[in-house]
């Protein structure tokens, strides 16, 4: 019996090729989409859970700088001494992740993503050791723990344990452990961890002494979960050692919350977006609903063709269960085949997903016993559900009308299929609107005036040793080339500006504390980069009083309350020096457009030792590839020992919007998918409708109707429902996009034409689909249509 029904199912399927293919295609895509998004969501939600102490790890926060995740160095030592409730505590320093010079054998390489941490780091966070004792690894002096990949990069296949490397041409480090690469779903990412005390030798500064330098993200494990109490104790102990810092209050934040809901946005951890997850989850849910609706719609529409065979079987003695079995096995075959294809599609697109979401999901996560079992079960339930509806409908028919192939449905039912089509179009219109809106925002970001020259490309590279001298050497060589427009030195650039200072401002007799982002520069830099002076002037090297001076952005002026006469203000707090305000520049975007404008000051501090080791090289965009090569070769000639690493400002800025761009791509794919499924559903329904209206069309034509009139008759109904879909979809899309745009301090408008365009596109697609099919029907010879009466 089983074998028979499978054979019959196949025969049935081959007879209804179009419907079957439509269903099949839609379902497979739906399954693939669901699988990929489900595994992604699951992966996101599993972030950091691999740490043994996951529930117990906390990160420190402070109120300075409007809230920061960076702590002063001495805090950790204070806590160890005074707060027994905190079991382990570790400082970390991520600020060298852009690159450190490392020499392992012959070559001097620049290694990115090296961090510094206290010896307790690996007691707080759990990483798998491949060789060496991980718990004590960083306790050894001058030690470094490296990941497997870094080990291969530096030492090939040799065991790295015990080997030495030279850091920044200054210190020798010993590899005390090799660990597995950091898992893709870890919010903390690094290639190696260097023992904290090494930092003192690299920086000529003792982090354990200075309470004013908020530089170190600090993590700890607690012995109890009485967080408030422990916070209070920390602040109490702090007051005793630093009673004058009254504004500083420390707090503890659960590490498990940081990935999705970070308190401070200046931390160095990876973050996920709940909103995006929700978005993706809902979108994929909608797509699957589309595919299922299609399937049910088509099955129901196809019923009249099945009635006869059902009737005959009943007459031949079939029981209800046999009839259900027939529908069920048919559904099962399609659903299972779709599931299989869907699984294969998902596997094929996994790399794309990983790229678009910056994840590292492995094939094993996607295809394993648990997942397969889950899929099988869901598919079986799905098959049962979709076969139930046609079964119930046929079962309720009178046997005799069944044999005459007459379907007696109550008046409402025919409307139902239009409702389903309308629902599909609601989803489609929403997705199209969303896609257009996101695109609009992305183009807004790409074309927005940032407040400095970004048409020209800027190559950035660091010269840490003797920056002033080496800069002059490099400049002498490079300016001979026409491709190189100009060069200047600064501390940082839009895209890397993170340094913040807290100082005192004196204005019209009053003194107040201020916080601001700060960028030490050399004269000429600001002009070269195209900043626009609003008040005052740029730094002038020959004017001695310019030294130690500041140029503020408009927001700084506003926030400091010195709009009346900005040039009268003075900034103190740097030893004996008093800084004048030399000028005011127009606000410019040095952070992502998601952020509101923050106060920033450029400063000119030749007497403070040279903080400007970033070389900015301006070239015209079209000459960029040649310019890169020129810089590379000149650099290598001048500094053969130094490895050559560079970035461009555009790369840095692009990085801000990588996530948004990728989200855009995903939504675009979903829109396309839903359009396809929606069209296929529409095609299917039209086919059925036309078949059932064949007689009517024939009669109309015989009575003189023109083809255009027949087309209008067929299109009319669908157009009405697409219009209804539009009315429902637009507010939904508007609301969703409004919510998403709230994330951006600088955003584009949600113009009315976005939604009109989406509606128009949906309508055109509907009408095209309907017309294409009905054109053939309308053209057919009426005799043909009426012959089979």
């Amino acid at each position: 019996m089983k074998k028979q029904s499978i054979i019959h199912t196949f025969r049935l399927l081959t007879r209804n090729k179009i419907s079957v293919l439509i269903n099949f295609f839609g379902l497979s895509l739906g399954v693939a989409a669901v699988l990929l998004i489900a595994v992604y969501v699951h992966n996101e939600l599993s972030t950091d859970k691999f740490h043994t102490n996951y529930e117990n790890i906390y990160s420190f926060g402070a109120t300075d700088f409007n809230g920061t995740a960076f702590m002063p160095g001495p805090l950790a030592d204070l806590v160890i001494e005074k707060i027994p409730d905190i079991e382990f505590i570790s400082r970390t320093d991520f600020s060298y992740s852009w690159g450190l010079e490392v020499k392992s054998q012959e070559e001097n390489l620049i290694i990115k993503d090296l961090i510094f941490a206290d010896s307790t780091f690996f007691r707080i966070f759990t990483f798998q050791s491949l060789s060496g004792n991980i718990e004590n690894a960083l306790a050894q002096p001058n030690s470094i723990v490296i990941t497997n990949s870094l080990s291969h990069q530096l030492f090939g296949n040799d065991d790295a344990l015990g080997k030495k490397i030279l850091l920044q041409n200054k210190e020798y480090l010993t590899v005390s452990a090799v660990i597995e690469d950091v898992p893709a779903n870890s919010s903390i990412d690094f290639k190696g961890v260097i023992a904290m005390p090494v930092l003192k030798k690299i920086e000529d500064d003792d982090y354990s002494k200075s309470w004013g330098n908020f530089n170190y993200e600090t993590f700890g494990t607690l012995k109890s979960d009485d967080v408030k109490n422990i916070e209070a104790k920390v602040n109490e102990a702090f007051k005793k050692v630093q009673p004058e810092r009254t504004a500083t209050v420390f707090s503890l934040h659960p590490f498990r919350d940081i990935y999705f809901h970070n308190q401070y946005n200046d931390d160095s951890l990876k973050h996920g977006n709940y909103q995006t997850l929700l978005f993706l989850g809902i979108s994929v849910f909608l797509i699957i609903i589309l595919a299922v609706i299609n399937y049910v719609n088509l099955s129901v529409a196809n019923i009249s063709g099945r009635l006869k065979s059902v009737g005959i079987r009943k007459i031949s003695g079939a029981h209800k269960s046999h009839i259900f079995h027939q529908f069920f096995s048919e559904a099962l075959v399609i659903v299972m085949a779709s599931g299989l294809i869907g699984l294969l599609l998902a596997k094929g697109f996994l790399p794309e997903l990983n790229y678009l979401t910056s994840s590292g999901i492995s094939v094993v996560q996607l295809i394993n016993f648990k997942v397969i079992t889950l899929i099988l079960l869901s598919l079986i339930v799905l098959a049962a559900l979709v076969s139930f509806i046609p079964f119930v409908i046929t079962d309720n028919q009178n046997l005799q009308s069944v044999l005459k192939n007459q379907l007696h449905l109550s008046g409402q039912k025919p409307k139902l299929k239009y409702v389903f089509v309308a629902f599909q179009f609601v989803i489609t219109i929403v997705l199209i609107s969303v896609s257009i809106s996101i695109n609009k925002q992305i183009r807004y970001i790409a074309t927005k005036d940032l407040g400095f020259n970004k048409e020209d490309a800027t190559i950035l590279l660091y010269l840490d040793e003797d920056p002033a001298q080496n800069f002059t050497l490099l400049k002498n060589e490079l300016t001979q080339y026409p491709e190189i427009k100009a060069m200047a030195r600064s501390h940082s650039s839009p895209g890397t500006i993170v340094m913040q200072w807290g100082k005192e401002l004196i204005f019209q007799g009053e003194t107040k504390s201020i916080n601001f982002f700060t960028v030490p520069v050399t004269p000429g830099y600001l002009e070269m980069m195209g900043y626009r002076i609003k008040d005052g002037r740029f730094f002038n090297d020959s004017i001695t009083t310019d030294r130690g001076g500041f140029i503020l952005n408009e927001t700084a002026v506003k926030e400091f309350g010195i709009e009346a006469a900005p040039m009268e203000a003075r900034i103190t707090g740097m030893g004996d020096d008093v800084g004048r305000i030399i000028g005011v520049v127009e606000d410019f975007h040095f952070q992502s457009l998601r952020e509101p404008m923050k106060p920033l000051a450029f400063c000119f501090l030749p007497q403070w030792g040279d903080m400007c080791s970033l070389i900015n090289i301006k070239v015209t965009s079209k000459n960029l590839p040649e310019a890169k090569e020129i810089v590379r070769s000149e650099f290598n000639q001048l500094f053969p020992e130094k490895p050559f690493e560079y970035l461009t400002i555009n790369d840095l800025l692009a990085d801000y919007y990588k996530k948004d761009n990728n989200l855009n791509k995903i939504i675009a794919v979903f829109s396309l998918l839903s359009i396809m499924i929606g069209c296929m559903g529409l095609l299917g329904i039209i086919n059925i409708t036309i078949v059932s209206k064949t007689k009517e069309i024939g009669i109309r034509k015989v009575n003189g109707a023109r083809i255009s009139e027949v087309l209008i008759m067929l299109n009319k109904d669908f157009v009405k429902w697409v219009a209804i879909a539009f009315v429902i979809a637009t507010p939904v899309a508007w609301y969703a996009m409004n919510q998403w745009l709230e994330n951006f301090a600088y955003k584009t408008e949600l113009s009315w034409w976005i939604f009109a365009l989406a509606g128009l596109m949906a309508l055109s697609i509907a009408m095209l689909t309907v017309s294409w099919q009905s054109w053939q029907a309308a053209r057919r010879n009426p005799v043909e249509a009426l012959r089979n009466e």
Partner: protein
Amino acid sequence: MIDLKNIFKYYDNKFQRTYVLKVNNLTINEGEFVTVMGPSGAGKSTLLNIIGMLDTPNEGEYTFMDQPAFQLKEKKKVEFHRNYVGFIFQAFHLIDEMTVAENIETPLIYKGVKSKERQAMVAEMLDRFNMVAKKDLFPSQLSGGQQQLVGIARAIVGKPKLLLADEPTGNLHSEQGKEIMKLLQKLNEEGITVIQVTHNEEFAAYGKRIVRLVDGRIESDEIVSKIKQPQLT
């Protein structure tokens, strides 16, 4: 075998009641060959459908083999169809996606007959109707007469006691029609009760009893006289 009492079927339309069937009394015994005749709309098919439990009247009693037919539950009805009744239709009603052999096999599958036995019974039918060569063809590949033969084969493969035929020759030309009627006669001689509905006077004469319906009521109920019976060849 079949006993119908006060079978009324009607449709109510606002203030009017239209009677489709008004049969006060009809008894058919085992082994009979009854033809139900009458003009279009007389209620012949309705009567047949009621006998075959494809339809139910608004009022009345129907006793089939001493069982009250209308009180039967779904399961019993299914049994009824499986074990006692075979149907033949004007439009053949074969399942298009099944081969000839599979079509014939269908009632046996639902009866739970084992595979080997089924094949034997189907083979017997194919042989009897000289269709062995056609057993793997699909209905669309057969002529009208052949399709009807398959329909009959399916109807009788389960050895039913009662054969209901609704205009079995309606879609066939006269030669094919005669063949079918002769076959029905033969089956009747083998012991199967046959009730057929037809317009055709000539084919009606193949039966032994003619019941004429007009406007839903039995007009006449006569035994076919021996003189009118055509010769069996």
